[in-house]
Every structure is written in structure tokens, then in C-alpha cells.
């Protein structure tokens, strides 16, 4: 299985990343992509600023991806996470999973997102529409619960 992890300020192109994972691979039957976008929160936000822990962010996402590879029969995983100040509508994160079968691709993509939310060292700060800096986004219990469902006894 191939794993690609990138942390970058620049935007990404999901179609190009999918092509990278699938071209010349006729054993792949299912491709799931998740793209997380910056919301405007009903006009309240001018931007989200994403801070990360360089080095650990890549290492932790790689650990999560390797874990997914042991749990599901995957052909490939790509995770790209942006940092810096991102405007509403901008891409934040991309997860792609490929597999022979759709269930593996779906479950692994959900697993990766749940773990990215709760274990990858990124933090979001709100910038408000009036130009001032707002609050740091608070972690949601919901995300911890979502991640816990993957824990095995």
C-alpha cells in the first residue's frame, strides 16, 4: 500500500491526487475522497488560521495512515493538510482512500478523518469578518466520541 502525507500552505488538487493513486492500477474498484472546507459560519468568519506542530504533524498522520493500512485492505492513502490563514470556501484537508472494495475505502476514510480531528497536532483560530482575531476553536466532545468508535478492546 502507498501512503502519501503532505502538510503545506498551498492549495491541493483532489483530481490530480486521485489520478496519482489510481492510474495503471486496474485492481482498484473504489475511491473515496473527503475534502474539508473552511466555512464562513453564516458570515461571521473572515478566515481560519491553522497552526501546526511541524515534524510531529507529518509523523502523527503517517502513524494514523499506517494504522488504517493494518485495519483495512487498502491500495493507497493520501492525506494533505493545509496550514496558514484560509478564507471561507478554501480547502483545508484532503483524505483519499483506494481499495478493491467500497466498504474498506469508506471506513478507512472515516477513520482517518476521526483520528486527524483528535490526534493530528493542528489548531484553528477564527478571524472575524470585522478584521479582528477571534477565539481558538474548541475541541468538540463529538469528535472524541467519533474517534472512540474505532477503538478495539
Amino acid at each position: 500500500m502507498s501512503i502519501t502525507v503532505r502538510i503545506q500552505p498551498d492549495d491541493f488538487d483532489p483530481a490530480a491526487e486521485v489520478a496519482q493513486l489510481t492510474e495503471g492500477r486496474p485492481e482498484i474498484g473504489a475511491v473515496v475522497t473527503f475534502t474539508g472546507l473552511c466555512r464562513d459560519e453564516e458570515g461571521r468568519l473572515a478566515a481560519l488560521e491553522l497552526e501546526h506542530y511541524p515534524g510531529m504533524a507529518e509523523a502523527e498522520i503517517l502513524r494514523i495512515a499506517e494504522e488504517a493500512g493494518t485495519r483495512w485492505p487498502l491500495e493507497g492513502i493520501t492525506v494533505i493538510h493545509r496550514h496558514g490563514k484560509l478564507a471561507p470556501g478554501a480547502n483545508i484537508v484532503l483524505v483519499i482512500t483506494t481499495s478493491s472494495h467500497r466498504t474498506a475505502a469508506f471506513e478507512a476514510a472515516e477513520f482517518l478523518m476521526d483520528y486527524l480531528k483528535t490526534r493530528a497536532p493542528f489548531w484553528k483560530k477564527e478571524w472575524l469578518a470585522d478584521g479582528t482575531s477571534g477565539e481558538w476553536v474548541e475541541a468538540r466532545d463529538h469528535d472524541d466520541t467519533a474517534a472512540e468508535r474505532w477503538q478495539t478492546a
Partner: protein
Amino acid sequence: MKILYFAWVRERIGMPEEEIALPAEVSTPADLLAFLSKRGPEYESAFERPEIIRVAVDQTHVDHDMPIGDAREIALFPPMTGG
């Protein structure tokens, strides 16, 4: 020891990282948080709820009661909100 701060921990302390000589009795993240909290009001504010602070030793998540050992860097930060 190199100590790194992120997000609002970094903002409250006022710097992203510093070198601190840790006394021998600081052997776990819990010890470290208690020790740092005594360095001044900015630290006290950053760590006023030590139980919510997440800790990474050499870029790996650890619990508050794990031994720090001979780590190169320890990072202290709020719960993560990526993805």
C-alpha cells in the same frame, strides 16, 4: 530541555519555545506542568487547567503520568482541532 508551546498555550506564555533546565524531580508531564506554573502569571494562566493540556514527548502523544526519560523536546498544547 526544549519546551514548545502551541495555539493559546503559546499565546498566553508569549513565546513558541524555550530551553529550560529541568530539576531532577520533574519526571513526568504532570510534574512539568506543576513546575512551569510556578514560573510566573503567564504560565499560571496557560496551565490553569492542567488536565486539558496535551503533551507530546519527542513528537509522540503521552499521558500526564508517563516518564519523560531523556527526551529531546516536550510540547504542550490545547486539545487539537485539525481536520
